[in-house]
């Protein structure tokens, strides 16, 4: 266990020893500030900082930015090791390939969590500056729920990115395919929504905020437990494909 956490620390340092790692955080801070300024200018009134934050961290606001930043940063996590040749030194140590890959995936999940926590703090600070500190229990609940849905949404797409990165060994191709999926997935689901199989499409299920009170699910008849089950199956398949490929592949 200790040896595994040291592998995760290695992966974390590989991310954070680059100065470019600051870019997603800067963008999210800028997002919070710009979003706050925009709703203020439009004359929206919020009773408290938490009420603002609950809106700003929702899937239809921060959810349009954060997952993309996570995908762009995580694409190349494995393929860059191949490109730089460091994969050779990584794989000739006394650790199984499973463990090496699992440590990378764990670091990716930790990175997503850090992005979400950072965003939560950024929108709360913005909200407090503009509308003052405070908020009702309902707002805090909504913030928590949004953060959880954001984590699930981003994790599903990052897992997909992770798999494409391993299969293609090219970070450029990976970013392209993954962003295309995020952008077009919803549209494709919409076009296919008259068929009943559409509810099994990954993209119909990724955004769990569709089950929030007052929202309509993408396809009638879908429920929260159903979508969660579908997502679990997809994530398991993506991980299976990733690990099997990574284990078997000759490094030449």
């Amino acid at each position, binding site marked *: 266990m200790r040896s595994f956490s040291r592998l995760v620390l290695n992966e974390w340092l590989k991310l954070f020893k*680059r100065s470019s790692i600051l870019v997603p955080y800067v963008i999210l801070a800028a997002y919070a500030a710009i979003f706050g300024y925009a709703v203020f200018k439009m004359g929206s009134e919020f009773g408290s900082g938490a009420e603002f934050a609950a809106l700003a961290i929702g899937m239809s606001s921060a959810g349009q930015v954060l997952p993309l930043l996570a995908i762009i940063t995580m694409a190349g996590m494995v393929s860059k090791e191949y490109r730089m040749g460091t994969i050779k030194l*990584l794989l000739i140590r006394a650790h199984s390939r499973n463990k090496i890959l699992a440590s990378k995936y764990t670091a990716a999940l930790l990175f997503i969590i850090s992005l979400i926590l950072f965003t939560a703090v950024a929108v709360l600070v913005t909200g407090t500056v503009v509308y003052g500190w405070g908020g009702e229990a309902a707002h805090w609940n909504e913030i928590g729920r949004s953060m959880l849905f954001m984590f699930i949404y981003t994790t599903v797409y990052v897992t997909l990115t992770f798999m494409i990165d391993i299969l293609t060994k090219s970070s450029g191709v990976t970013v392209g395919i993954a962003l295309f999926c995020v952008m077009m997935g919803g549209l494709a689901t919409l076009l296919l929504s008259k068929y009943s199989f559409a509810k099994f499409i990954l993209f119909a299920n990724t955004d769990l905020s569709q089950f929030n009170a007052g929202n309509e699910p993408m396809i009638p008849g879908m429920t929260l437990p159903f979508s969660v089950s579908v997502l679990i199956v997809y994530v398991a398949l993506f991980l299976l494909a990733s690990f099997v490929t990574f284990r078997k592949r000759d490094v030449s």
Partner: protein
Amino acid sequence: MVDMNKRNSAAEARSDRNETVLQLDNVSKIIGGKKLVNGLSFEVKSGEIVGLLGPNGAGKTTTIRMIVGLIGMSEGDVRIGGSSVSKSFEAAIRHIGAIIENPEFYPYMTGLDNLKQFQRMTEGVSEERIREVTALVGLQDAMNKKVKAYSLGMRQRLGIAQALLHKPKVLILDEPTNGLDPAGIREMRDYLKLIADKERIGILVSSHMLSEMELMCSRVVVIQEGKLIAVRSINHNGSEEKSSMSLSLEVTDVELASRTLAALNKAELLSKDADRGMLAVKVKHEDIPSLVKALTDAGVGLYRLEEIKSSLEDEFMKWTGANRSA
């Protein structure tokens, strides 16, 4: 802790003299019906430097990558320090330190940060050991510089530091002198000899630099088209003195000289060239003084006497066919 490690390794070094640390057993790699490596077997003992030689495309890189588990084996097995690479990879690989092709690091990290990455991947590598290996390769002053600012020679040395960090039993180097200048090559050679001797590490080096291998290795394994074609020991300190050797003589009178030698009956005449005044003989080491005396007594003037050494390159060409370039 450090003291204990030292004592252990010293004890091991004593008991493990000439123990086989790396053993290839009928190893093959088949891709698409083509045998890239075909039933290869050889071994490396502790304290010896073995060269893996072969023309381009002979399967050197594939062989080395199979040893370290980067490429799977189709047949056969590799044993490192007694553990099988295919069955118990983690136990086997912990005895290996390697640089496969170029030493590659995370360029945006410092040398020290890179070594710490490897430290975290192995149990029991102390800060002290990091200082030890960096001092050994002479990089103390560059440890806080980013690797992207390193020269190729510095990266090679950091590569060696990385490979030795966990005190392996076997060191594997793929083309270690690639891109080094002559001083760097010489430094690398002396250094490898030192660690083979002092730390009793078995070293496997692949290269196509024949003259370099001749100076560095105690044994060479020659492969071609994935097959073993020769294993040859190289004696550096003239331990073959007792056996017979070939000599080239430049004399005033070839005919008189050859008659004298025939009468002496201690040397076998290999060839003679009357125009250039040269002749070649095969003679035992201890008979050389009497040969010289006999020639002088017979009135043959001797300008020059030298040993004809067949270089590794000559033999390599013989083995692999002269039309192939190494």
